[in-house]
């Protein structure tokens, strides 16, 4: 069963010149035990989507969706308090820059024990203190910190960034969530630490069967860890499928460009040759193109692209493009040609 099922989620922003559609009809579903990657360049609305899921957006953002279900419960019908109760038990989120997310004036041990709620303990109240401490140490062991006593009595600035991120993950794990949302957890880290954090997330996913939504701007770093990937561009859904489908047979011109521009995927091309990229850059929120937002940069764009394409699915590989990169069946191709002629 789907844990999280989102259909056509739109997020609008109130600006002085009217409402702007920041996220335009994005669908996302996460199954139990799935490790999903959410890829998009900066400004593609991926963090916004994550914040909308856990419901921490400010009032100026308006969220609408056709379906927004968490384990069969419609989240949009719940009141804010009910929704908060439900989600803070089941979903946890970690952010980029762990150093700035932890309280610099409080010891790590206190911050951790704050996150553990009383309902996990049994026994009399005088046993609580001891149990709490044991639980904290257990959490630290879970995220791979062995020197727990040293870690508990230090402040965030005394630890390295990778350890801080581990502490953040430990805090997130305190309530034993079912889904962990990681918003660029390794953005400011170097590669060796990055690998450690990803490995920890993969371990949690496999051993504890926890679902993970990993948000990143870099496709090539993700592919080794995730099982499924969703790609977004400028607030629109682009493509979703398993990692192999996305990386080996991308159907959307944008995903194709992402894969082509990755230097790791193109080890066979000679050094110092030109990389294939899309011209231009991601449009800003004030000047979004109509229809498919990739339109002005897309090498395959045609007249029909001024209408936003519908999502089509090929064996679970969903793509949102009028002219996906594969040979269509003859009949469909003819139909599309007629549509093109009709608009002319």
């Amino acid at each position: 069963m789907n844990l999280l099922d989102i259909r056509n989620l739109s997020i609008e922003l109130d600006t002085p010149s009217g409402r702007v559609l920041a996220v335009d009809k994005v669908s996302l579903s996460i199954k139990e035990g799935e490790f999903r990657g959410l890829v998009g360049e900066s400004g593609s609305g991926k963090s916004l989507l994550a914040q909308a899921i856990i419901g921490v957006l400010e009032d100026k953002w308006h969220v609408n969706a056709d379906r927004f279900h968490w384990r069969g419960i419609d989240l949009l019908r719940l009141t804010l308090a009910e929704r908060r109760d439900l989600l803070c038990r089941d979903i946890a989120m970690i952010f980029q820059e762990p150093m700035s997310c932890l309280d610099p004036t409080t010891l790590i041990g206190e911050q951790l024990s704050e996150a553990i709620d009383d309902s996990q303990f049994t026994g009399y109240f005088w046993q609580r203190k001891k149990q709490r401490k044991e639980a904290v140490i257990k959490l630290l062991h879970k995220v791979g910190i062995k020197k727990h006593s040293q870690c508990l009595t230090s402040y965030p600035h005394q630890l390295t960034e990778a350890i801080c991120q581990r502490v953040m993950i430990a805090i997130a794990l305190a309530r034993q969530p079912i889904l962990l949302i990681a918003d660029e957890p390794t953005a400011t880290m170097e590669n060796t630490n990055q690998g450690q954090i990803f490995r920890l997330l993969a371990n949690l996913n496999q051993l504890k069967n926890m679902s993970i939504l990993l948000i990143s701007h870099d496709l090539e770093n993700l592919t080794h860890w995730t099982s499924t990937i969703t790609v977004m561009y400028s607030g629109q859904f682009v493509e979703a499928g398993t990692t192999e489908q996305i990386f080996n047979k991308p159907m959307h011109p944008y995903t194709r460009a992402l894969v082509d521009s990755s230097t790791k995927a193109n080890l066979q091309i000679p050094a110092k040759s030109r990389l294939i990229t899309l011209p231009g850059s991601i449009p800003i929120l004030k000047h979004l193109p109509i229809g498919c937002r990739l339109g002005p940069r897309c090498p395959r764009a045609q007249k029909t692209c001024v209408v936003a394409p519908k999502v089509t699915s090929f064996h679970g590989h969903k793509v949102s493009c009028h002219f996906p990169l594969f040979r269509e069946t003859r009949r469909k191709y003819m139909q599309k040609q007629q549509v093109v002629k009709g608009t002319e």
Partner: protein
Amino acid sequence: MTVLLDVQEISKSFKLKGYWYHKRTFTALSPLSFTIEANKTLAIVGETGSGKSTLAKILVGAETPTQGEIYLHGQLLQKKRFKQRCQHVRMIFQDSGTTLNPSLTIQELLDEPLILNTDLDEKERQQLIHKTLQKVGLLGEHMNFYPHMFSGGQKQRISLARAIILEPQVIILDEALAALDPSLRSQMINLLLDLQQQMGLAYILISHNLGIVRHFSDDIMVMSHGKVVESGKTLEIMRKPKHKVTQRLIMSQNFKLK
């Protein structure tokens, strides 16, 4: 090929707090030497604290080396003569958003190195700025814009324009490609490679991303704790890494080269 930049036995150590008779020093760079030819790229890889950025700062003149000399075309680069050095060695930083002065227009930004280092009059300077902006793929009209009006990729192009406006021979890229989005990054790589062909530039690339290093560089230097542990042709080292540090770096990125 003639040697462009010749670095000989450069080292850097910092004084730490200590007592009179227990003066302690921290060695950021152990003596190292290397040479770069025109049209070539040298990549420097290593963990944080391995002395890559210190080396870059010494080359560009922001720090003075404790020992050692740097020769450009066989001519000694003197420690305090910035005018000579800035014309030949330029640097691009990681975060272009914060390295551009937000209160100056692009024209004023690019004017500064010209006023300080050349005797061109105002009209010539303006023409040169116009030409340089077009070279990096921007429009001449962008001269009158402020940095906040540009996107991240465009800002990085402006930093590049500021670097090449004096027609240098060596450009140091200190993680200049790390903060960019993938598609902008490959645009930037293409641009840098084009400029290298046109102007015969030598690059010193400091990067974590081995994919970029593989694609971009001819030679590689692996550093760890201020020492060079391995150096040579990029492809050979990536195929057969000998030192532990190199092997670990390649392992950590799941990087396989056939």
